[in-house]
């Protein structure tokens, strides 16, 4: 890498590490999200135990699979809160006018910041999930180093997609004042399409439609890679995640480009 | 009859000492280390009904703590307070009916609602009957010139308009005493002048006792007849504004500028600032006669400009603060 390019890349790394450290300073802040996550996992472990009391398997999932699925599927969601509100807030308050003038790629910079802070937030959740999952469902179904690597990559991509979609939704604040409605609809669809329940649980048609949306890439993919690893399908899931990330990135760039032009022409 | 009285009022907080480092933090969970902080130590003063008193002191002197004890929010750890014949710490709710409070930083108006709605709510809080409430509201709206804003949400008002509404709100129940903590903070010159005029008018017309803290000397000069200065939790000055101003007359600031460079030498007086052709002196009028000084300056060379100013009240008070600091232990 030439030194100019290295300098260019460096500012994104610095942004990521600065926001990571800022996040780490507010320990009480993510203690709350860890507690909420653990509570959720615990309650669902009781629900699943009750559901599996009378039958060994539902839609091809046994108790341990369902539980580990849930443990993983919730991680990207709990690890990525707040990015929408931050950016949407900056746009609505007009703060963004000062930010666009700086010498960096805006989308890349915001993504780096969000990723840095999410990385810090997600680690304790990951630890808590592993411990709690082991406690209520036995050891995780991790068979090989390859599976572990794919799982890690898939979780990273799920987190990245969460951030990118939140940023894209937040960028609509250039046009729509009350755009939190978009976030809600997005979150609830994600909840139903693979976060609370594996896709296989949905009715046939719903499940087939859901597979064509980005929602499975947010939760289903990493969870499925953990509980039902098979090289071919798992790689396909990973590929789909990467494709959705690329699409979301392009969407962010397009929204930002248009929004910025609007900002310049209308002065915010 | 006395409106506010403090006798040996004191307040000691016990603050937890936040230790550095993880091990010390853990230890402090089990056995927290505490440190006693004497915020107010034996403050005594009397305020008559209808008096307007400025309560001054540098940041951290114990002003807010004292006001909180006088209004019943904080309970004193020693001494006695009496406001309108009531002990604030025992009879806060009763006292609340006859005092008003404006804390510049804490609003009692609803941010998203027009003041008229907050007024109505306050009418219910103070149990005013409807007719009396409406008459009082209209009277205040007239006097404070806020009639046009009564139906505009508070968030759309300027700070000056908001503060006027804020003060009007605290007067709905016709309190006999009004406590104001930094009422003009952040206001522009015109808005400040308006608020001061209103307070002065209120005292004259309704005989409201006014107890005001401010860092703005203008507030104090325009509104108050007396100043109580506290420092490190104790009263260091309690005198009329007139006497306070007299202190400022004791020192004159003399500036002189000559048409060409001049050796500015006066026997027994060093300038505080000197350039080749100009100088500035601080003159203690008890030690030097001002007319002799001026004559001496004129004799030194061709004078282009000569100014004589009283020391500002602001520097008088600053000197009291600094002095008080020296007297601390």
């Amino acid at each position, binding site marked *: 890498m030439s030194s100019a390019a290295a300098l260019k890349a460096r500012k994104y790394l610095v942004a990521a590490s600065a926001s990571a450290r800022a996040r780490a300073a507010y320990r*009480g802040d993510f203690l*709350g999200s860890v*507690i*909420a996550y653990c*509570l*959720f996992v615990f*309650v669902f472990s*009781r*629900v699943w*135990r*009750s*559901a599996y009391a*009378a*039958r060994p398997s539902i*839609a091809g999932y046994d108790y341990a699979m369902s539980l580990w699925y849930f443990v993983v599927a919730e991680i990207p969601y709990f690890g990525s809160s707040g990015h929408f509100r931050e950016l949407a807030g900056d746009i609505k308050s007009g703060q963004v006018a000062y930010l666009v003038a700086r010498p960096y790629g805006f989308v890349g910079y915001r993504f780096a910041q969000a990723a840095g802070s999410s990385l810090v937030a997600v680690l304790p959740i990951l630890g808590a999930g592993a411990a709690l999952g082991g406690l209520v469902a036995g050891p995780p179904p991790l068979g090989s180093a390859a599976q572990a690597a794919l799982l890690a990559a898939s979780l990273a991509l799920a987190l990245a997609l969460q951030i990118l979609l939140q940023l894209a939704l937040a960028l609509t604040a250039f046009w729509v004042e*009350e755009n*939190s409605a978009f976030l*809600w*609809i997005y979150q*609830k669809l994600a*909840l*139903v399409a693979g976060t*609370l*329940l594996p896709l296989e*649980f949905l*009715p046939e048609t719903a499940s087939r439609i859901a597979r064509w949306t980005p929602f499975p890439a947010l939760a289903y993919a990493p969870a499925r890679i953990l509980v039902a690893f098979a090289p071919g399908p798992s790689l396909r899931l990973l590929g789909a995640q990467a494709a959705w990330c690329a699409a979301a990135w392009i969407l962010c760039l397009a929204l930002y480009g248009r929004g910025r032009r609007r900002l310049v022409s209308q002065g915010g | 009859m006395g409106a506010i009285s403090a006798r040996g009022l004191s307040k000691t*907080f*016990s*603050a937890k000492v936040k230790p550095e480092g993880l091990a010390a933090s853990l230890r402090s969970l089990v056995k927290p280390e505490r440190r006693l*902080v004497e*915020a107010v130590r034996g403050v005594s003063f009397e305020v008559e009904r209808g008096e307007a008193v400025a309560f001054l002191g540098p940041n951290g002197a*114990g002003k*807010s*703590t004292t006001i*909180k004890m006088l*209004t019943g*929010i*904080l*309970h004193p*750890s020693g001494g006695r307070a009496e406001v309108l014949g009531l002990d604030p710490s025992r009879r806060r*709710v*009763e006292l*609340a009916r006859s005092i008003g*409070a404006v*804390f510049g930083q*804490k*609003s*009692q108006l*609803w941010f*998203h*609602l027009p003041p008229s*709605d*907050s007024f109505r*709510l*306050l*009418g*219910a*809080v*103070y*149990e005013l009957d409807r007719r009396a409430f409406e008459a009082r509201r209209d009277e205040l709206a007239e006097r404070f010139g806020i009639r046009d804003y009564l139906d505009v949400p508070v968030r759309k008002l300027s700070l000056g308009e908001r503060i006027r509404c804020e003060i009007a709100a605290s007067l709905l129940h016709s309190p006999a005493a009004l406590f104001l903590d930094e009422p003009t903070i952040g206001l522009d010159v015109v808005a400040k002048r308006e608020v001061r005029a209103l307070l002065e008018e209120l005292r004259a017309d309704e005989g409201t006792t006014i107890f005001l803290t401010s860092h703005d000397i203008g507030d104090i000069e325009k509104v108050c007849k007396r100043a109580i200065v506290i420092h490190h939790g104790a009263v260091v000055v309690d005198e009329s504004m007139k006497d306070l101003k007299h202190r400022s007359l004791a020192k004159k600031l003399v500036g002189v500028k000559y048409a060409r460079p001049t050796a500015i030498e006066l026997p027994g007086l060093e300038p505080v600032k000197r350039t080749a052709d100009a100088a500035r002196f601080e003159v203690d009028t008890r030690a030097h006669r001002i007319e002799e000084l001026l004559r001496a300056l004129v004799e030194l060379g061709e004078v282009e400009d000569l100014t004589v100013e009283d020391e500002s009240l602001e520097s008088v008070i600053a000197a009291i603060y600094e002095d008080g600091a020296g007297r601390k232990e």
Partner: protein
Amino acid sequence: MDLSIRGRARAYATFLGASFSANLKSVLEYRANFLLQVFGMMLNNAAFALFWGILIDRTGGIGGYSFEDVMVVWALVSTAFGLAHVVAGNVRSLGDIAVRGELDVYLLQPKDAFVNVLCSRTVVSAWGDFLYGYLVLCLLPGLSAGRLLLFSLLAAEGALVFAAAFAAAECLAFFLGNSRSLSEALHEFLLSFSLYPEKVFDPGMRWAFYTILPSGFIAFVPLAAFKAMDWGLVPILFLVAAAYMAASYALFRAGLRRYESGNQMGTRL
């Protein structure tokens, strides 16, 4: 001034009425936002309804709850939770208010600080929760005036227990200083446990639902009362709610004494 009990009661009723109407107006200042939040909350609840529908379709019932039971519990809890936040909007910010020293404003007014501070705000999205319960009730078969009345009474009782429990958790701030995470965790626990069938939880922890995390009096007993149309349980439940309120109030008074002493509250001199 009228100092009789009736006079006092009337003064408080006027005050609460004025407070509520100010709340409502303040919400309507942002009509679009209001509708959006209401709609958003309903959507959130509907997503969970979908989840339960799918799960119960697959299993035939969870922890003894049929799909209709789940819907009734969600309706009850949602309306009770909403009502608590609509009327007493500060019920989950009391601790922050105390820590920031903003209790002063309420202490300077001649009304009980507990009632005054709790009721001086409304939570916009809570209106969505409040309405959602009634929406569900209307969609369930067998709607009648009696069911509507019983539902409203049970939800009101649940709202009292919610408010008492939330406020009590917030009062920890008086004693611990910044207790945000702990208070919030208690809020989450109470809400979550109320929304799932009692029987899925281990018998060893169910005592908590009738003591420190009173989901039993918000969801489980009211559900039984509603299903059996058992009006006799209503006064008993209200007595329990009153006891929770009294305990919460006592905790607040104890906390207030610390506030008045000026210690523990981050000591702002």
